[in-house]
């Protein structure tokens, strides 16, 4: 319990510190001005979201292979946290886009593939509510989760493979890309902060899923009496 409280405190402090750094330490971008400061939160959330889906994908593969319930619990926990992070990406993106592009949304490859990713993981969670039998639910959702993850490389590659309204990558974007030194430091700090927050949320969600399993077992025992 103490470790969980400590992780929560660290996550909150890091997220607040990353916001402070984005507002007061990072320099103002020359073309976009103040609005570019959304970048640190928007991209930090996006990277943490992708990594949460990666955790879900690995947990799904492990469930299919080993059929241990703990991988099912981890899969659904990471999927839910990834979905929350992607929701933040889909909300902060249009707020940034509107003053810069003059539009809230456009159906370009990056935005569309991210929205499809969001829909896929909503479907993953909905699918789980439709199946009562725990082993069948875990297996089918693991198989669906493996399929859903196929969209993640598409989201990553969309701004590299196709011309999009969304800007080209500034990190891992090849020659000509890159960030000013202080911007890069603030960005990497924000990414780290969002990952700690994601880890904290996944752990909390995992404990919840474990308790659900305990309730199921106790209910079956009660029914058997």
């Amino acid at each position, binding site marked *: 319990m103490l470790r969980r409280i400590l992780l929560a405190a660290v996550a909150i402090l890091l997220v607040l510190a990353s916001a402070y750094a984005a507002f007061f330490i990072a320099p103002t971008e020359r073309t976009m001005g103040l*609005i570019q400061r959304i970048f640190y939160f928007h991209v930090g959330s996006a990277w943490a979201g992708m990594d949460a889906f990666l955790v879900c994908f690995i947990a799904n593969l492990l469930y299919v292979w080993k059929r241990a319930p703990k991988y099912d619990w981890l899969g659904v926990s990471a999927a839910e946290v990834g979905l929350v992070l992607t929701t*933040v990406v889909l909300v902060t993106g249009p707020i940034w886009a509107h003053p810069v592009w003059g539009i809230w949304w456009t159906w370009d490859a990056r935005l569309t593939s991210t929205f499809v990713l969001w829909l896929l993981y909503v479907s993953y969670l909905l699918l789980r509510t439709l199946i009562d039998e725990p082993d069948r639910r875990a297996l089918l959702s693991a198989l669906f989760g493996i399929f859903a993850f196929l969209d993640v490389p598409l989201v990553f590659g969309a701004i590299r493979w196709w011309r999009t309204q969304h800007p080209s990558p500034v990190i891992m974007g090849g020659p000509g890309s890159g960030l000013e030194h202080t911007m890069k430091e603030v960005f990497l700090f924000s990414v780290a902060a969002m990952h700690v927050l994601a880890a904290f*949320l996944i752990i909390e*969600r995992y404990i919840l899923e474990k*308790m659900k399993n305990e309730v199921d077992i106790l209910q079956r025992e009660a029914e058997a*009496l």
Partner: protein
Amino acid sequence: MKNLDSVFAAYLIGWAVFFLFYVSIAKRTSDLRAEIERLKNVLPRSKG
């Protein structure tokens, strides 16, 4: 200070989403804890 309100809005909405998600986890955990306690109290009595 152009667009400062939009930057604040983005951060505040984002934090609100995380906060509400955490509250939903805490609420569901608390409900399950109560249910576990209730079932544990019922089971020994039935067995006895």
